[in-house]
């Protein structure tokens, strides 16, 4: 018998650690003969904490939203006592959503114990690297990658084999294999899930790449905001060294490779490969002109290859099953599967790995279970600050690199932030430009100052001070920032503005000319009024109003003076009778 508790960051935040210790105590107290382990994130974050019980007959039961009471029932079940554990079982629909996914990068996440190398070894772990170094030449490995059609999962979709071949072809004895785990896109967390849930698969993928390019040293650049990921990866590296999987003469061959972790220090731009290299060298993370590409001059001016976590996580599967098996999944120009992070106003938030070519509708209404609270789907933001907002009318767009680019958004790292009617698109654009302003390294004038000017315009529109001509000014600035920036951050930073202008121009016009925010998000554009029929005159709103705008007599409807009102929204928030109307 075996019990696993999902302890990814999301599970831990939902209380999985407490559930684990309760189970531990119970198992001890009742002398139950079973193995208790942790596992990573299975992707159903909305159901956390999740506990899997594998009974001695091999049958698997998944318990979700496990509480202390649920633990009691599960323990009774294990003791063969009468119990109500059944009510905590996963709903059939949720199980079907999980089964319908096609998992390659996430194949072991939420199933094996990431802190135990043996479980990875039992799941065909390190077979692919063994095959590479004992049976294949580096060229054959690159050929296999070419056959697979795997594109970089960090966002750009650049063919992985091509990068590897350039790095292999570069002159020099010393080469570096670098993993970009600086997952900075707000709204994306698939890399975190892979490192927390299956760190050995990442290590194996990096090793295969290292063998292919001829490198004996690797570095994983992990962002500092992922403390658990760093701990699990450190542990995995130590375990792999102990087994001789990392180190000298791996599997009795002359292949030697070791791996180190470098923690990032909080700079979004370090996801750009030349900025990442600068950061590894102890410098400010500022991008530089390419060429020379990292494949020629990278870390310490030596040939280096950089791939994203999810890209590496696909590699062992490709080697084990063959490049053509991977290429058989997906569409003409986008092969394989992709992990998406579903968040925002979605009913069932979490991770989903689906074949390329799946439509937005299938993801939102299938795995995602539709919009929270049954509201209307308005748009999906894809690709983070470099991406764009895809409106509801394009919900049947297929998710592949080409189709997404045609909408003005990008695949990006796979973050999908779902928005409903209560999301203001002008505010969204403002949010992303603010993000870019904070994260711009400051090297290029257009990115540094152009984005700042765009932010000022967007702020004034959201504050009800938008002027005629603002839309045209924004469009012009957006084009200039695109053209005048050196790296991907600047070149793509206007995308959120451009896509919202393209699909939601009416909202900009409403803000500027009618001084209205239909989503009721931009507070300065709102008016608050008391609905006389609903107000019981409890005085609570008047007490909380910081500007003394609300007056009245007890037990009679109160009045809001719009001249004095500062639109803070406190009255609507505290009213227990929904008597404050917001328009």
């Amino acid at each position, binding site marked *: 018998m075996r019990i696993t508790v999902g302890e990814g960051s999301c599970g831990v935040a939902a209380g999985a650690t407490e559930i684990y210790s309760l189970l531990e105590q119970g198992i001890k107290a009742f002398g139950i003969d079973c193995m208790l382990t942790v596992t990573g994130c299975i992707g159903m974050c909305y159901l956390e904490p999740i506990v899997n019980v594998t009974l001695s007959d091999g049958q698997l039961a998944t318990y979700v939203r496990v509480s202390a009471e649920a633990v009691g029932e599960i323990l009774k079940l294990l003791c063969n006592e009468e119990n109500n554990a059944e009510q905590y079982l996963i709903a059939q629909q949720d199980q079907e959503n999980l089964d319908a996914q096609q998992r390659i990068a996430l194949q072991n996440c939420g199933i094996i114990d990431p802190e135990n190398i043996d479980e990875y070894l039992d799941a065909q772990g390190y077979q692919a690297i063994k095959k590479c170094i004992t049976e294949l030449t580096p060229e054959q490995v690159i050929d296999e990658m070419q056959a697979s059609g795997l594109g970089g999962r960090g966002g750009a979709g650049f063919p992985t084999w091509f990068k590897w071949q350039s790095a292999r072809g570069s002159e020099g004895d010393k080469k570096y294999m670098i993993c970009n785990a600086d*997952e900075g896109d*707000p709204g994306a967390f698939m890399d975190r899930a892979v490192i927390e849930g299956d760190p050995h698969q990442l290590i194996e993928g990096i090793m295969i790449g290292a063998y292919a390019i001829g490198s004996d040293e690797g570095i994983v650049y992990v962002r*500092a905001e992922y403390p658990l990921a760093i701990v699990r990866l450190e542990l995995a590296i130590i375990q792999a060294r102990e087994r001789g999987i990392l180190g000298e003469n791996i599997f009795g061959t002359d292949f030697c490779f070791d791996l180190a972790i470098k923690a990032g220090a909080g*700079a979004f731009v370090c996801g750009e490969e030349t900025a990442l290299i600068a950061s590894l060298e102890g410098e400010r993370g500022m991008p530089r002109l390419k060429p020379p590409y990292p494949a020629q001059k990278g870390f310490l001016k030596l040939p280096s290859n950089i791939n994203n976590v999810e890209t590496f996580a696909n590699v062992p599967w490709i080697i084990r099953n063959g490049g053509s098996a991977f290429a058989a999944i997906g569409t003409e120009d986008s092969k394989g599967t992709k992990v998406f992070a579903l968040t*925002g106003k979605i009913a069932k938030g979490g991770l989903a790995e689906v074949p390329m070519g799946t439509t937005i509708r299938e993801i939102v209404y299938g795995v995602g279970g539709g919009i929270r609270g049954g509201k209307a789907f308005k748009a999906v933001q894809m690709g983070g600050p470099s991406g764009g907002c895809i409106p509801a009318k394009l919900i049947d767009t297929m998710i592949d690199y080409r189709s997404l680019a045609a909408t003005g958004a990008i695949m990006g790292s796979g973050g999908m932030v779902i928005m409903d009617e209560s999301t203001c698109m002008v505010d969204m654009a403002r949010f992303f430009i603010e*993000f870019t302003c904070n994260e711009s*390294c400051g090297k290029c004038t257009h990115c540094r100052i152009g984005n700042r000017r765009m932010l000022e315009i967007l702020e004034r529109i959201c504050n009800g001070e938008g002027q005629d001509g603002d839309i045209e000014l924004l469009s012009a600035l957006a084009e200039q920032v695109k053209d005048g920036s050196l790296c991907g951050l600047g070149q793509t930073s206007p995308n959120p503005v451009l896509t919202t202008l393209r699909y939601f121009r009416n909202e900009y016009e409403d803000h500027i000319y009618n001084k209205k925010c239909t989503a009721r998000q931009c507070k300065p554009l709102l008016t608050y009024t008391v609905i006389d029929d609903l107000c019981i005159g409890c005085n609570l709103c008047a007490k909380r109003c910081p500007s003394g705008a609300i007056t009245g007599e007890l037990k009679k409807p109160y009045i809001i003076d719009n001249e004095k009102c500062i639109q803070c929204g406190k009255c609507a928030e505290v009213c227990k009778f929904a008597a404050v109307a917001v328009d």
Partner: protein
Amino acid sequence: MGCNCSENKKWECSDSSIDIALLEPELAKHAGSPINLIKVLQKAQELYGYLPLDLIVYISSALGVKPAKALGVVTFYTQFKTKPVGKHLILLCRGTACHVNGASGIEEAVSEYLGVSEGDITPNGLFSYNNVACLGCCSLSPVMMIDNKAYGNLTKDSAVKILKEIEMREASLCG
């Protein structure tokens, strides 16, 4: 035999609570190695909570980096703090998902409860908070992280309740 009185004189930080001896092994390990600047700064911040200016200068000379460059690195990365932080540092996520799900309201509540604004420390030294880019727990948005533990699905009330619980734990520790 030259004079070695300067070697005997131990450097002291302007913040007397900083015991430089704790950092010396790390400095010795990376002496003269500029590429490890970020690593050493991270270690120093882990030990002392923040990086006062004279400590940055001290580290830079040990690693063979110009002080201006070291300060440039410190100010470039959001992780580094040049002001003291509270015993419990609150990281408020301002990622997209958290923004859509009301992160600004959470900041309002936290700021109002603590009575300080971003980056400032509460008078009792217990808390300070910073807005950070995505913490990667988007499905639990809005999220905050305190002492490496993520708290999700926050409301204004639950965020304040979590702070109160930490205060109570601290009070019971003090007896």
